[in-house]
């Protein structure tokens, strides 16, 4: 299901008393069902209802990209989506990236190797944008393509150069695996 049709199947008659609706979704591989207010933002749902505070809220108007997550494999700003629209969707957040044993994935490791984060607030959003990009683009991207890939994420600390280096390293280590 494409991102653009998400939420179209929310059934009005499921809206229960006290203005609460039921949503069923899969978050980081775990199936769940929750009763929520229809106005609840997906970002707030993840952070407040599920305790997944790795998804950060930077601007709440869809520009900074800190709240980027994957919805059915595509990168989405969770502050611009209502939780009810995620009904039936598969969600991935930054908490899903490392292995069960705690080891970092390729892009996380490349960030650490290249000093691609300072305060780290914007980092989960970058990681999710890049995760989505790398899944959809197996070929080593050019510098311009890398910049394009992260142009929807603001970072106020690093000046981006080390993030670009990290993406390059992630591609080379992925290709050498």
């Amino acid at each position: 299901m494409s991102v653009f049709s998400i939420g179209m199947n929310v059934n009005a008659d499921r809206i229960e008393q006290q203005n609460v609706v039921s949503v069923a979704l899969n978050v980081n591989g775990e199936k769940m069902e929750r009763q929520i207010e229809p106005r609840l933002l997906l970002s707030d749902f993840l952070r407040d209802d599920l305790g997944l505070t790795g998804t950060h809220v930077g601007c709440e108007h869809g520009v900074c990209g800190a709240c980027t997550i994957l919805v059915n494999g595509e990168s989405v700003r969770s502050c611009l989506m209502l939780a009810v629209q995620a009904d039936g969707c598969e969600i991935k957040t930054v908490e899903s990236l490392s292995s069960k044993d705690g080891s970092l994935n390729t892009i996380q490791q490349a960030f650490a190797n290249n000093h691609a984060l300072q305060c780290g607030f914007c980092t989960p959003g970058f990681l999710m944008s890049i995760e989505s990009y790398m899944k959809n683009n197996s070929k080593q991207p050019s510098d311009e393509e890398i910049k394009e890939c992260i142009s929807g994420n603001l970072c106020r600390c690093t000046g981006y150069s080390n993030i670009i280096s990290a993406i390059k390293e992630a591609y080379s280590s992925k290709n050498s695996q």
Partner: protein
Amino acid sequence: MSKYVGQNVKRKEDYRLLTGTGIFVADIRLDNMAEAAILRSTYAHAKIKNIDISKAKEYEGVIDVVIASDLEGKVKPFTEFVEFTLPSNLEQEIKPTIKRNPEPMLAKDKVTFVGQAIAIVVANNRYLAEDAVALIKVEYEPLPVLTDPYEAKKEAAPVIHAELNNNIQSHFEVKVGNIESAFRQADYTIKTQLKTPRVSGNPLETRGVVAEYEERSSQLQVWSSTQVPYMVRSYISKLVNLVEDNIRVVAPDVGGGFGPKCAVYPEEIVIPYLAMKHKRPVKWIEDRLEHMQSTRHSRDQVHDVEVAFKSDGTILALKDHFLLDNGAHNSFALCCAYNSAAHLRGMYKIPNYNIVGEIVLTNKTPNVPYRGAGRPEAVFVMDRLIYMIADKLNVDPIEVSRKNFIQPEEMPYETDLFYRDGTHMVLENGDYPEGLKQALNIVGYEQFRQEQIEERTKGRYIGIGVSSYIEGTGIGPHEGAVVRVDSSGHILAYVGSSPHGQSHETTLSQICADEFGVSPDQVTVKAGDTSLLPYGVGTFASRGAVTAGSAVQVASKRLREKFLAIAGEMLEVAPNDLEMKEGKVYPKALPSKFVTLREIALAAKPGPRSKVPEGMEPGASVTHYFIPPSVTFSSGFHVAIVEVDKQTGFVTILKYVVIHDCGRVLNPMVVDGQIQGGVAQGIGGALYEEIIYDENGQLVTGTYMDYLIPTAMEVPVVEMGHQEFLSPRNPIGVKGVGEGGAICPPASIANAVCDAMKPLNIKINSVPISPNRLRDLIQLAEAQ
């Protein structure tokens, strides 16, 4: 013995931040926690006739609605920030006028800027709190609005704060040499006006506060996204009247600061008060619109400047009268304004200098020091003047710079000024001509000049711009460190300056590890918590490495000496004959006979088994407060190569080079990261960022769609070179680096654009150089 200092040690901070397990203020959840939302003024200047909170109070889930009158007798009004008051000798020297102008916690009878807090709603959750905010009705009576500082300082202007008599809040003058006679000797003078606009630091994490009061022990626990937790603690204690030791302020992971979080805000006082009042935790997280409106802005200086020089390019004198539009309040005395005055001459010898600064109040958000704090404004003035002098004399601007540099043999160089900390401003060391040479070599200056001529014939406008800075870094009054070894043999270093991206946990552990001869993995650095040390200052003004780094070094060294003394007792060997390495102490002659740090730590405990030499206090801990004798002067050069699209006015940065001196480099990767990030913010200031108010004092740049923060598309990879003149003013030889990157880009890029457009003789006197502005200048030039 530096094994780790100077190395690219990977950051200890990264794992939690990469896995989403860091804890920022908004991530804190407590049982029974309520959430607050704030009603803010929609008027820039108005009387408050009435506030009706009745509907909001009745709204389901609302716990409390407070307005200014509810705080009377409970929360005292702010004072000015005593931390920023002038030292007495500086005050005697410049005899400034500084009127007291603290801000109210909540606006009572009058609002003075859009975004000023009027009422706070506490509810069961944020959604309900915001619903209730919308139910509050405020009746305003609009007053005339001042947004132009020149209008504001006129005698007939409406006065924003009646008790100040007019809108000129501060005034000072600095004089060096004899300006009049120098002007008489000049071959040329240039008079111009140069402006650095209002900008916003915009850390990606907004402000936020969580407070919890525990009745059993009378403990107030506050988490705040701040650069200065000790300052927050001190003001809560003073204004809510609490025993200071009963307050613990923690700055957990903080998502960037850059200056705007280097202040105490009303929310940091009132939210803790509300948590005490209702005996339940209260959380307030600022949203981005609130941030744009109410988190303090910066810069906003206009300089009317005149320079006198000889036909060979020697600058004889400079006089300047500048206004700093500080918005509706100023709690920072002369901080940024005096920084501008002290730094304006930069690395140039200008023996006759006269500068008058006025801080003017308008109906805008108050200002705070932001990365560079008065230096970017000063550098923009000085380095634009260098290019204007070169234009006038028809020589390359590089020649004008070279002609006027302070020479290496003149170091240490007495500037004949006081610094803001009350000490004589003396540049300790450096080689500026060599720094410029290095920068020009990297960029290929001569070759570029050739290329530029060729490209111009093809109708391509490329230009090169240079800018330089000196920066007093690592200001006092002090910063402390406790270094101790726990009973498991692990080393801990606690410091008072709390980080927000600067990598303290890594770089300070490198310093400590080298003293003990262990790996940084065996050292844990803790910061950002007022329970760690009795006193602390904070992370701002490029001071972390200088002040906290030095404190850690001295405390580590002293603890190492103590451990050697204890080991001497244990091994019955003189401490001088012992070696400490890899967590063990052993006689130099017999490495197999060792005691471990853990064993020494246990022997340091008081009691009958103690091996602490007589006359020495038991314990495995040393506290040291480093008190810098004065600031250390970092310096640097920035060179920008840009291309201007004449049709659109769009500026592309083709190359950016930085040479800098921050003394000893503790971790090159971290230092380079600070510079690259600073340059990105500077590029924002040069080309994109400006806080704009309309004539009614309405903020028209309230979102990231209007206030443009550079993305990866706009920021080039900066090429860097280092000079490493160790500062004699601290034991590790460091100078601060946090702000330097952000200081020069407005000047270097403006100079590069002017250089590119030289055939049209375009002069850029303000930033940001947005396409529409540059296009206007191009059209104007073409029409002439």
